[in-house]
C-alpha cells in the first residue's frame, strides 16, 4: 500500500462465528435447548460458501476452521498491516435466514452479545454492528434499544436482499431508532433468499449471484430515496458495505433523470436523488470493482461529484485484493486520508464519542 494513514478506520471486517457451539453461552435457556432438541448444527448462509475463493483470502485462511474466527490472526492480518486504529465488525451470521421472528431475535441477541464479549471486550480497536431480526421491525427496535447504551455498537446491520425494499414504511421504526441513537444503517451484500438474487429470476452460478448484489444495492438506494426515508430521517447515514461503488454515478444519473419527469409521484423528494445520495449514503471501499487505471479512477471520482462518499474497508477476510494493495492505484495522499480517516469519522458519530 503506497499511502499509510495512521488512524485508518476499517469500516467492514468480518469476524466469523466459528460454530454454533460458540453462541450457546449467549443464548437464553430456551433457545440453547432448542439447538440441542432440534439437532441444529449450524446456521449457514450460501452468500459466502466456505470453500468459495472470495470467502477467505488464501493467506488469511486457517488450516482448520473459519477465516476471521481468531482474534490474534485478525489483529495480525487486518489491523496492524494497514495502521488501523478502529475496525467495524460486521458479523454475517445467518440470522436473516430464519423464518421465525422469535428465533431470529434469539440468535441476533446471541450474536450481538458474543461479539461484545469475545471481540469488543478483548480488543479496544474494534467496534461492531447490531444484528437485528429484520423479520419483525418491533423486535428489531427492541434489540437496538437493548444495546444502544453500549457506544461500541456504531450501526445497525441488514442484508441488501431481504424480504422487502428497505424504504417501506413498515421498517421506519427501525430507522427511527437508529437515527435517535446516532447509529448508522449498514446495508451489507448478501441475501436472505426470500426472492431470487436478480430481478429476472434465479441464476446458475456464484459469479452471477455475487455480481448481482450491485443491482440489489441500486434497488435499495432507489427505495430509500423514493419512499422518503431521508426526508423523514435526514440525519440517518446509510453505509453500503461490500457493494462496489462504480455503479453509483450512472445509477444516480438515471434515477435523477426519471425523478425530474415523475417528481409529482413522490413530492417529498424535494431535491435531486443525486443530492440526497451524496448527503446520506456512503459506500465501503472494497471490493474496488475496477477501474484498473489511476486516470480512470480519477474520472470516476469526478462522476461521483464528492470525495466524501467512500469509506476505507479491507473486507477482511474476504479475498478482494492481494498483499497490502487495499487502495486503488494512484490515489492522492489527500483523498487516501479522506477515505481512511475523515470520511468514516464524519459518517459514524459514535466513533468520535468517548467509549467507557
Amino acid at each position: 500500500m503506497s499511502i499509510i494513514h495512521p488512524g485508518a478506520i476499517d469500516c467492514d471486517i468480518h469476524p466469523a462465528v466459528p460454530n454454533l457451539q460458540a453462541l450457546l453461552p449467549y443464548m437464553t435457556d430456551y433457545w440453547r435447548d432448542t439447538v440441542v432438541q432440534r439437532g441444529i448444527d449450524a446456521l449457514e448462509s450460501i452468500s459466502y460458501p466456505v470453500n468459495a475463493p472470495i470467502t477467505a483470502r488464501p493467506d488469511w485462511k486457517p488450516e482448520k476452521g473459519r477465516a476471521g474466527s481468531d482474534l490474534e490472526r485478525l489483529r495480525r492480518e487486518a489491523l496492524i498491516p494497514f495502521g488501523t486504529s478502529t475496525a467495524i465488525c460486521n458479523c454475517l451470521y445467518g440470522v436473516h435466514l430464519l423464518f421465525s421472528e422469535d428465533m431470529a431475535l434469539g440468535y441476533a441477541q446471541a450474536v450481538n452479545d458474543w461479539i461484545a464479549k469475545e471481540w469488543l471486550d478483548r480488543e479496544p480497536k474494534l467496534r461492531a454492528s447490531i444484528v437485528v431480526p429484520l423479520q419483525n421491525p418491533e423486535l428489531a427496535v427492541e434489540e437496538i434499544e437493548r444495546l444502544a447504551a453500549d457506544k461500541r455498537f456504531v450501526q445497525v446491520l441488514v442484508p441488501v436482499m431481504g424480504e422487502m425494499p428497505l424504504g417501506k414504511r413498515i421498517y421506519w421504526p427501525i430507522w427511527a431508532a437508529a437515527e435517535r441513537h446516532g447509529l448508522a444503517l449498514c446495508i451489507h451484500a448478501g441475501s436472505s433468499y426470500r426472492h431470487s438474487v436478480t430481478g429476472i429470476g434465479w441464476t446458475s452460478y456464484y459469479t452471477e449471484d455475487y455480481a448481482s448484489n450491485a443491482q440489489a444495492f441500486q434497488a435499495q438506494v432507489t427505495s430509500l430515496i423514493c419512499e422518503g426515508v431521508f426526508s423523514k430521517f435526514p440525519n440517518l447515514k446509510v453505509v453500503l458495505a461490500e457493494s462496489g461503488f462504480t455503479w453509483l454515478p450512472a445509477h444516480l444519473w438515471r434515477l435523477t433523470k426519471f425523478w425530474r419527469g415523475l417528481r409529482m409521484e413522490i413530492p417529498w423528494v424535494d431535491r435531486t436523488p443525486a443530492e440526497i445520495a451524496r448527503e446520506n449514503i456512503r459506500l465501503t471501499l472494497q471490493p474496488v470493482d475496477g477501474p484498473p487505471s489511476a486516470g480512470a479512477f480519477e474520472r470516476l471520482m469526478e462522476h461521483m461529484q464528492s470525495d466524501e462518499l467512500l469509506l476505507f474497508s479491507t473486507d477482511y477476510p474476504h479475498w478482494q485484493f492481494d498483499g497490502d494493495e487495499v487502495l486503488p492505484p494512484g490515489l492522492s495522499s489527500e483523498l487516501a486520508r479522506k477515505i481512511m480517516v475523515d470520511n468514516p469519522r464524519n459518517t459514524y458519530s459514535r466513533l468520535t464519542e468517548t467509549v467507557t
Partner: protein
Amino acid sequence: MSRHVVAPVRDLPPGSRKLVTVKGRPIAIFNIDGELFGILNRCPHQGGSLCEGRLIGLVESDQPGEYRFSRPNEILRCPWHGWEFDLRTGQSRCEPDRIQVKSYEVAVEQGQNVCEGPYVAETFPVSVEEDYVVVEV
C-alpha cells in the same frame, strides 16, 4: 421590448391554448380559467413542444405519504419527458433555480387601444369592436 397582438380573445377561450410566433419566437399561450400565460414553446431539456403538454396541479408534500394539491392546471408537463413548469414563472418544479423556461407577459387589450398603438399586429387586421391578446416580447 414591444407589445404584440397575437389573437382575438375569442380565439383563446378558458381551457384553450394557442401557439403563436412573435419576432420569430414560438410562444405557447394558455388560458387557464380566464387568466392568460405565455411561455416559450421549447422545453429547456431537449426542446419538446410545451404547447402540447398536459396541465396538472401543483403537487407538494411536507412528509412522505402527504400530498398537497393546489393551483389546478397551472403546472405544465412537457409532452416528451414529463418535466413540470410553473406557468406563472416558467420555473421547473424539479430544479427551479437551475432549470427554467422563458415566460412572457400576456394581457388582454381593448380593440380601441390596440388600434391606437403602439402595438404590433403582424398577421391579421384588428378592429375597435374586439378585445385582443397581447404578448410582450
